[in-house]
């Protein structure tokens, strides 16, 4: 990387996350001005306008791609209309050791004096929690499931190529056309549509104005700049920002700057989950790159520099501060923008191009937490592409992850997307498949599969809280057969999914009614055409996900009971339950038997793997295909972010030998240490799950560096991946690190400040993880050479 990039990258790394009160103040003022006087979509549009008009403009020294969400890098706003933090929350956020944000005296005061008095009791979070049933609240508080929209807005969506082909002026034309053709005679919803479209129009103009303000600022800076080179750059910035995003970009630079303004718009309008994401960046940029390289107006070095500066912008925007359960399920600064490379083109041909390789180079050089990156690997992509990625993975900081493009397309088509929309899609967040630019695929919360087993084994009672959360499916001591256990468990899963979905419907309605996102709606087909907001079902495709957690722990627990209680009768159910209740206190032998003399998922042995398939199916059938109130369908994902640690902390001892409070298995990976047959065993077991019925699964493998130290190792790793994908595996990622290194880092965090590891669908600084998660990663099986 060149000197400029080096400096800006270092500044980004050194910038300290802090809260800024700027956004909260502008939003509060806008609400005071408009609330009750205009329709809600218009109020949201006018609030967005106020933000774009009044936010401080920040152009950092030396940068070419401009714009920050806050007044400076890593100054992170709050979103009081969604979650109005208490002063105590601020103190926790300020003082906590991990994922902290510094809070200045001024921020404390303004929050206390201006923000809290207006928002207290009125935020979506307040509204949401006060509208949930006692049943839902009990399950939420006991850790049966989490709720994504409790502090953050639905997002989970990704840009397609529209913004590069059509400037905001083009979108305004589309909006005007729809406004003109509204049916004021027969359409009962005509007013809602009109207001939504007007709000979108305001937002489109507002973002153009925001860019213009950057142009003005750059011109001002140019005037007083003494360095001729920098002066020219500032003038160029001014030129770019006065042309886009109103007009479609003409150059590589303009394309990147266009996306960046759009990104800032989305993450300022609301704190959408997964931020926002450029998606298939190599596909979008290639036409600009090709044209400019041919015309001689851009060199490869310049393209790399611009990309690297673009990367730094992502790293400057940490995920907004979370608290409580939402922090526990996702404790990271990473905001999950996850850039896709490779994959297929709309006609089904190989999508790998020159920009793909430039992006891989950028990933390798930048080594930043944000943006996250992945490759979309199709059977049609060349091996060179996979190997280039594998060489970066071998360096051991967890990026990029690898997705099966062909499986992703098949998953999307199974859900009813057209083949073209599917081919233009990819994966975002951790591992979630989506039709980019056309789908709202909302993750609604994690589901604690293992907790449901615990409740089943206690006849509907959650032992930790003593509450009767589940159905009375019978005293397990009276179960005669393994099938009795399965029947009871199935009923409990259905029961809790029912509670979760009812809650979701109310939450969705609250967002649809009170928290439209007219700016985001411009970007997602067919919100303009339908005159309907993204949060109200305006997207072409609407999917809701409930993400299953702990399938490894769950499988091994069922296998242990099947073998020892029902088949070999090594112990009675009564003995087992007593051991679990006592957290295996004086029955260490039982625990050891469960750990060591029981078939485990992850070893390519059908005994356990067949159980996994059955349990997966039970979950799949309970969720898949159920209608959402927005006219979409429910689907499942199998991923945890950091929730397997939180869910573990609220779940008692399990029949697989896991002690109470310990983390559960992560993603669809085997229980930490349970896989003893090497990586092919894990891959074969994992592939027995029917990935194509999900919208994403997450498999993590830990390799020692020795396994991939040379080209032969890279070659074999590549074959491992290709084989997994032939078996329809959805995603795989590697941690290339020794447990010893991790242990040293735990003891001496100062020396290992830069150590990045793969957590679950994203990478993070090892020393920023909480201790339970650090230990969980250390405990994962290390596949080594022998």
């Amino acid at each position, binding site marked *: 990387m060149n000197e400029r990039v080096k400096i800006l990258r270092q500044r980004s790394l050194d910038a300290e996350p802090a809260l800024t009160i700027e956004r909260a103040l502008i939003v509060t003022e806008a609400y005071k001005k408009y609330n009750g006087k205009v329709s809600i979509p218009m109020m949201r549009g006018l609030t967005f306008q106020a933000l774009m008009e009044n936010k401080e403009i920040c152009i950092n020294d030396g940068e070419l791609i401009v714009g920050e969400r806050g007044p400076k890098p890593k100054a992170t706003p709050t979103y009081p209309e969604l979650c109005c933090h208490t002063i105590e929350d601020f103190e926790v956020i300020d003082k906590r050791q991990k994922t902290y944000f510094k809070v200045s005296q001024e921020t404390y005061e303004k929050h206390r004096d201006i923000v809290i008095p207006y928002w207290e009791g009125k935020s979506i979070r307040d509204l949401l929690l006060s509208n949930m049933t006692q049943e839902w609240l009990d399950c939420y508080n006991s850790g049966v499931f989490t709720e994504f929209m409790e502090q953050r807005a639905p997002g989970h969506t990704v840009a397609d190529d529209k913004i590069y082909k059509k400037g905001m002026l083009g979108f305004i034309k589309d909006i005007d056309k729809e406004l003109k053709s509204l049916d004021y005679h027969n359409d009962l919803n005509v007013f809602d549509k009109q207001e939504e479209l007007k709000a979108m129009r305001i937002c489109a103009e507002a973002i153009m104005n925001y860019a213009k303000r950057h142009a003005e600022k750059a011109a001002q800076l140019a005037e007083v700049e003494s360095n001729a080179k920098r002066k020219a750059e500032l003038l160029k910035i001014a030129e770019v920002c006065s042309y886009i995003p109103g007009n479609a970009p003409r150059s590589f630079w303009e394309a990147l700057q266009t996306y960046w303004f759009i990104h800032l718009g989305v993450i300022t309008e609301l704190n959408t989950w997964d931020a926002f994401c450029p998606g298939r960046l190599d596909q979008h940029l290639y036409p600009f790159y090709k044209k400019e390289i041919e015309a001689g107006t851009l060199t490869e070095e310049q393209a790399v520099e611009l990309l690297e500066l673009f990367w730094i912008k992502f790293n400057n925007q940490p995920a907004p501060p979370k608290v409580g359960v939402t922090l526990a399920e996702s404790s990271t600064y990473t905001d999950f923008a996850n850039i896709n490379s490779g994959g297929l083109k709309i006609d089904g041909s190989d999508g790998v191009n020159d920009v793909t390789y430039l992006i891989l180079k950028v990933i390798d050089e930048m080594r930043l937490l944000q943006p996250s990156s992945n490759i979309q690997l199709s059977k049609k992509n060349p091996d060179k592409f996979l190997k280039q990625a594998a060489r970066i993975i071998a360096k051991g900081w967890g990026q990029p992850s690898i997705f099966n493009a062909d499986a992703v397309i098949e998953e999307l088509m199974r859900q009813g997307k057209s083949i073209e929309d599917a081919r233009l899609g990819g994966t975002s967040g951790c591992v979630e498949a989506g039709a980019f630019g056309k789908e709202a695929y909302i993750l609604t919360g994690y589901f604690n599969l293992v907790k449901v087993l615990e409740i089943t084994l206690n006849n509907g009672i959650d032992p930790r809280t003593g509450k009767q959360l589940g159905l009375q499916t019978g005293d397990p001591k009276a179960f005669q057969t393994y099938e009795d256990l399965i029947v009871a468990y199935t009923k409990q899963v259905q029961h809790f999914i029912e509670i979760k979905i009812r809650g979701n419907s109310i939450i969705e309605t609250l967002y649809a009614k009170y928290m439209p996102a007219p700016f985001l709606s411009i970007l997602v087909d067919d919100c303009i055409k339908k005159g309907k907001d993204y949060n109200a079902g305006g997207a072409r495709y609407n999917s809701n996900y409930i993400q299953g957690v702990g399938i490894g722990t769950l499988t091994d627990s069922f296998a242990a009971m099947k073998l020892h209680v029902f088949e070999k009768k090594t112990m009675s159910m009564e003995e087992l339950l007593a051991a679990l209740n006592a957290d295996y206190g004086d029955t260490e*032998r039982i625990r*050891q038997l469960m750990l060591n*003399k029981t078939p485990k998922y992850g070893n390519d042995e059908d005994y356990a793997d067949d159980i996994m398939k059955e349990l997966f199916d039970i979950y799949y059938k309970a969720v898949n295909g159920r209608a959402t109130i927005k006219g979409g369908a429910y689907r499942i994902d199998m991923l945890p972010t950091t929730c397997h640690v939180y869910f573990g902390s609220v779940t008692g001892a399990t029949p697989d030998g896991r002690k109470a409070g310990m983390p559960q298995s992560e993603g669809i990976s085997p229980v930490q240490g349970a896989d003893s*047959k090497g990586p*092919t065993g894990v891959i*074969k077991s994992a592939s027995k799950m029917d990935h194509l019925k999900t919208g994403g699964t997450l498999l993590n493998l830990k390799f020692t560096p020795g*396994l991939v130290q040379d080209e032969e190792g890279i070659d074999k790793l590549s074959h*491992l991946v290709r084989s997994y994908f032939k078996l329809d595996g959805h995603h795989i990622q590697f941690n290339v690190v020794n447990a010893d290194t991790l242990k040293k880092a735990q003891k001496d965090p100062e020396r290992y400040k830069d150590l990045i590891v793969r957590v679950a669908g994203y990478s993070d600084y090892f020393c920023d993880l909480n201790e339970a998660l650090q230990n969980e990663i250390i405990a994962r099986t290390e596949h080594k050479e*022998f």
Partner: protein
Amino acid sequence: MKGLIFNIQKYSIHDGPGIRTTIFLKGCPLSCSWCHNPESQSFQKELMQFHNRCIGCGECIKVCSEGALIHKNSIYRSPELCTMCGKCAETCCTNSIELAGREVSTLELVKELEKDVIFYDSSKGGITISGGEPLSQGEFTLDLLQRCKDMEFHTAVDTSGFGNTSVLMEISKYTDLFLFDIKLMDEVLHKQYTGVSNEIILQNLKQLSNLGKRIWIRIPIVPGINDAEENIAATAKLIKTTPGIEQINLLPYHNAAMEKYKRLHKEYQLNDLKIPAMEYMDKIVELYRLYGINVLIGG
């Protein structure tokens, strides 16, 4: 047909081309002091003990019909009384007693090998039969190889070369690649360090070469034992005069197996031997290069 094996290693990436599964047969006529798989030497089942795992539950003592076990901090076994029935290993909840060696049929083995066929196909890998010494369980090895060939697996045999020549000839019909160990050229020294003469070994190598088989030579480098220039010169000469040798791998001595010796209650004789440094290995590579031979380190 049944045989005695002690391990099946999947994602085996150093025992021939591609991703492979290696089957380790138990029992070896050689007794090399540097052997890193001491459990491979005996033709009998053996018990291995992991004292650090034992929680002292005493269940193994209860199931031992010979009274061969006593508990004293950990479990101790009297080799005189033990009949290797394996009941203790079966009952041990922490696997602190494990039985090295199990009887397995070629049919079962092929089923296990078949599990990774997708990886062999993708990587042009296959299966490797190693040991112990595959030639010592000749019929079993032959049957296994025939079945593997029925499955169209790529097959490799990793051998010390010490075994019946006619058995080797028969096996070679179903073997795509031989991984052939050359330890020492001097017959007296060979006998001193491995327990057997190398005469048959060298003959067998010649036979395989005459048959036009593909051969990779593997040479352990054990400092002070087989690193003399004389030995290297003789080895180089052998390689130069033997057609069919495609690759030569030098395997630097390592002492990772010390722990295994303890588990088997066997004595490790090379306690004082240092692991060869990178520069030392580079020198040996250079010596081979002077003879016009390219060698790889590791593999």
